[in-house]
């Protein structure tokens, strides 16, 4: 428990620890406790996992986790998730940049309405959309294919990316475009060489959060995918029925493999969290 150690460390400046400091850390630890328990269960030797009362002191082992990685399709699920999320999000951001630039600079008739449509597609319950997609994919034979899922996830990532990038492009003065044209630059040159480099925070936020959304997406992966194309959330879901019985060490290990990259991402990209979770509609830092 390194976070606990960090907290217990004697403070360099002497003086009483403020009550609110303790409170803030306590709240964080309480919220993290369930996840810590899962990680703990994954590190526990198998024979102790079902002990009641729980065994608190044990020699941690990585054997559950290595076993889970080498079991069945785990490694493949993990790899598939990485492939979808990175390919689809990269594609989506390219398309969204083109769209957002057009929305921001040319302001076609009905821009507001189109932006509204984009955002509302993310507010519909996934279960409502999965049926039409299911039928469509049956019709064009895209079920259980990488192409099908990557296309879907690209579409899935576009609304948020357009929203966030448009906000950032609106913030870049059109003087940049005009100056570029005066010096004889082409439209593409202006877009990619003058505007794009100024959107860095927006690009990072769009990239990181779409990766998280795709990484987490379950229902479409489960229904449109198949044994060849399941990702890590489906892996988690099916882990309850491994070999026809419930192996909690296994579930906890897969959960740990799944959750650690997320926690690290949150730590590294914390200042983009707000913009990410409000679909780019609220900006600011925490």
């Amino acid at each position, binding site marked *: 428990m390194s976070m606990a150690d960090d907290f217990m460390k004697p403070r360099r400046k002497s003086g009483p620890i403020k009550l609110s400091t303790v409170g803030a850390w306590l709240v964080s630890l309480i919220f993290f406790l369930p996840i810590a328990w899962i990680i703990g269960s994954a590190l526990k030797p198998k024979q102790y996992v079902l002990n009641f009362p729980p065994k608190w002191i044990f020699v941690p082992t990585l054997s559950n986790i290595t076993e889970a990685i080498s079991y069945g399709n785990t490694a493949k699920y993990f790899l598939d998730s990485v492939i979808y999320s990175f390919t689809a999000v990269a594609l989506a951001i390219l398309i969204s940049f083109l769209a957002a630039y057009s929305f921001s600079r040319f302001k076609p008739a009905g821009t507001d309405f189109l932006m*509204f449509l984009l955002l509302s597609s993310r*507010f519909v319950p996934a279960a409502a959309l999965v*049926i039409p997609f299911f039928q469509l994919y049956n019709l064009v034979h895209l079920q259980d294919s990488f192409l099908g899922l990557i296309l879907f996830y690209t579409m899935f990532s576009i609304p948020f990316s357009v929203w966030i990038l448009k906000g950032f492009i609106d913030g870049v003065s059109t003087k940049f475009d005009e100056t570029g044209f005066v010096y004889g630059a082409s439209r593409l040159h202006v877009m990619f060489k003058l505007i794009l480099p100024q959107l860095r925070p927006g690009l990072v936020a769009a990239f990181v959060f779409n990766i998280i959304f795709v990484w987490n997406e379950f229902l479409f992966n489960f229904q449109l995918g198949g044994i060849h194309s399941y990702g890590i959330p489906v892996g988690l879901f099916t882990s309850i029925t491994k070999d026809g019985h419930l192996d909690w060490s296994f579930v906890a290990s897969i959960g740990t493999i799944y959750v650690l990259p997320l926690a690290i991402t949150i730590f590294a990209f914390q200042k983009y969290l707000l913009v990410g979770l409000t679909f780019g509609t609220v900006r600011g830092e925490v």
Partner: protein
Amino acid sequence: MLGLSFNDYKLISSNAPHYVGLSNYQSFLADQQVAHAVNRTFVFLAFAIIFQTTLGILIGVLFWRNDKLRGRRLALTLLFTPMVVTPVASALFWKLILDPNFGVGNYFLQIFGIAKIDVLTSQSLAFPTLLVVDTWMWTPFMALMTLAALGSVPKAELEAASIDRLPLFTVIKTVVWPHAKFILMLGILLRSIDAFKTMDLSLIMTDGGPGDKTELIALSLYRYAFKSFNLGYSSAISVFLLFIAISLTSIYLYVLNLKSRKEA
């Protein structure tokens, strides 16, 4: 989807889809089970929003007052992790924790002298448990929105208020609230939209049970589509949900517009 909702279309029947007009909608309106699920969803939504907003504001203020906290970034990471964990995973994690035989949750209950219970199959406790887990997942989000909302209050105004030694209540009412309210409202709206869509959580933790105690509308929809393959009927429910989603989105954007108009 809109087209399908006017058809009698069951994947398990050999009849081709055919036009039945509004009958899917009629049976939808007459369906007691669906009506209950919708009611339950709104109850769920109301409680979830109240708990999460209250707790979120308290936690947000706690961290706002502590901007020099040692290891603040790590503390916030720990706090925010639950909300980026996909509901499928959270549901599984809680299933392990709440297991009636060996779950650590029951261990703590026993310490306090309460007998082991299986909260997920209990008639009276399953729904509150679902709420607790949802609150665990999404309170950090409201805390994040609170932090953002408080961050949007100009520092100069706060300093002026403290120089004037205004009472706390006046500061909140006249300085903090006018700036912070928009982002808070957006947070609540986003949360309502999301709470309305809750499905994975009850699918894995309770599968809608015991009985139909935790059957939320998004879960019913999923069941009609993929368990009984009644695509016409489930499309009718989808259209209904779509309308609710669109109206909530409109409110969201309306508030957002108010905000940007005010900033301009």
